[in-house]
């Protein structure tokens, strides 16, 4: 029984690998275009960082946060987003799949739906664009912020990134649930996701209590950037929050994903296909 289970997992991994191979092949088909796109993403993001730096240098430090510490916090956003896109591009593009009928095709294949959604797409451009910004920020700030890379910290860092990626995947999936009823939901998602993400680029202690609560309990971006960064930095404003929050990122990620997935299954029953474009 158990060997059957591991066989199945091996099959999944192999199939995922084949999908990735095909996606990579497509990317290589349009080398220049994809390279430029990755470059464009990189520039768009790095400019937002530069603007932030220019504004912040006028105040030097806010509530005891140095520039490099702020940027270290910011790097979590970029790296976890890059990781999220690398694994879950399909979740980001789900409403598109519903809209153009690709999802109908998934329904007539003998594979799990989530598996097909996740493995059918990889956006290398966004992965590289965001990832490069994240890595540059990390390399520039980790040293000066005095972070020691021992085994414990490294383990925490990796789980925090994965947890952060899953939190973002859950948020995207939540918005994609509404595509079962309303088909196009990109704007709803942009409203919730990218605006919250903008807040999460700064320490949440800067904000009024309402926004802090929102970023912890409703759109939990605090677990993507602020709490993981505080684990390493321990700035005095951490006193404002329960210390257990520092370790909750993977838990919040797993719980959210499970909850949203259940909701997604529920929505699937109401799926009405994208009209008559198919038949």
């Amino acid at each position, binding site marked *: 029984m158990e060997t059957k289970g591991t066989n199945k997992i091996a099959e999944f991994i192999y199939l995922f690998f*084949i999908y990735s191979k095909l996606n990579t092949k497509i990317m290589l088909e*349009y080398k220049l275009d994809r390279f430029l796109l990755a470059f464009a993403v990189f520039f768009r993001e790095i400019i937002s960082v530069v603007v932030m730096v220019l504004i912040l240098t006028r105040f030097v430090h806010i509530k005891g946060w140095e520039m490099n510490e702020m940027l270290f916090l910011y790097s979590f956003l970029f790296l976890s987003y890059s990781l999220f896109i690398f694994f879950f591009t399909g979740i980001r593009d789900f409403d598109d799949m519903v809209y153009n009928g690709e999802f109908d*095709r998934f329904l*007539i294949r003998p594979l799990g739906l989530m598996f097909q959604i996740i493995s059918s797409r990889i956006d290398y451009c966004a992965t590289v664009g965001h990832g490069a910004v994240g890595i540059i920020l990390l390399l520039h700030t980790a040293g000066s912020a005095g972070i020691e890379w021992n085994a414990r910290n490294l383990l925490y860092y990796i789980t925090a990134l994965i947890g952060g990626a899953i939190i973002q995947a859950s948020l995207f999936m939540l918005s994609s649930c509404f595509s079962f009823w309303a088909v196009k939901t990109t704007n709803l998602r942009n409203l919730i996701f990218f605006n919250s993400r903008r807040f999460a680029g700064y320490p949440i202690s800067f904000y009024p209590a309402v926004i802090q609560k929102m970023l912890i309990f409703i759109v939990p971006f605090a677990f993507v950037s602020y709490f993981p960064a505080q684990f390493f930095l321990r700035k005095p404003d951490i006193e404002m929050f329960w210390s257990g929050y520092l370790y909750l990122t993977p838990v919040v990620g797993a719980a959210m994903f499970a909850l949203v997935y259940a909701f997604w299954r529920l929505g699937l029953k109401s*799926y*009405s296909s994208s009209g008559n474009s*198919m*038949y």
Partner: protein
Amino acid sequence: MAFISVENLVKDYRINSRKKGLLGAISSFLIRESILKRAVNDISFTIEKGEMVGFIGPNGAGKSTTVKMLTGILVPTSGSISIGGLSPYRDRKKNASRMGVVFGQRTQLWWDLPVSDTFDLLRYIYKVPEKTFKHNMEMFNDMLGIGDFINQATRQLSLGQRMRADIAAALLHDPEIIFFDEPTIGLDVVAKEKIREFIRFINREKGVTMLFTTHDMADIEKTCNRMVIIDNGVIIYDGTTNEIKDRYGRERSLIVDFGENPGDICLEGVTICGEGEKKKKFTFNKSEVQVSSLISRLTQEYSVLDLTIREPEIESIIREIYEGGIDFDKSLSGICQEVVSEQRSLQN
């Protein structure tokens, strides 16, 4: 038990009603009004293993919704579907592994990649054994000429090539049942014939059950022996193509080119209309007037240059059915009697 059995199938859609004009658009944005539309209304039928059945019906009749429920894409509002003992949506994966679907309007091939890449992927998805894969690829090569373009990207294929590749892709894993959605749409006559021939071959050799939706009556005539006509979400006819043709295609016409103007001709049971001075069209019922006697009379009395006999095509019969011009004869075996009377009472 029948291979496919569908009982009292119903599907309702909730449609947001939108009002006209800008003000209307604003008001329907603020207050959502939705109406319930019944796309499929209490349909029941059975299909045996190895049968080829054509689903036809005007646009929006509910045939696509029915097929979407049969393939497991949509969940029925009520009623039951069983395909070889499985429910298409509850046992989705199991059912999908023995089912093939061809969409004429949408390809399952990866657009930017060579056709062979999609085949490789499908081979792993359906876990097709090496031997079967090789054997099937050889067959596709022989019958559909896949080999000529297997290394080209899908976007570079002609429509005919793409359709052939799509059909091959749906058949790769030796499915027990195949759904064809307009498999010949947009193709030229030769390509259409080639595809029909292949479909007949697969049905004959492998005993695959096949369901078509199409608007091309020639598809139905040349491949299916059974035809299901759906209109307004109900089945209005379910029977053979020949039967409907026999019953409603009794009218014949004879077109005659005369050597000189024949003047007025009077024949019993025949309506005559002139198509020109020397060309006349004789229309008659084949059970009342014999074509041979009509021809011999005409050739004896007049100088005849050319003769053409026309029998009504199934297409024109179907057109009349769609337009409500044909009242079904209840004695015809395929007619769903309750439905006919029900529809009448609705119309009155």
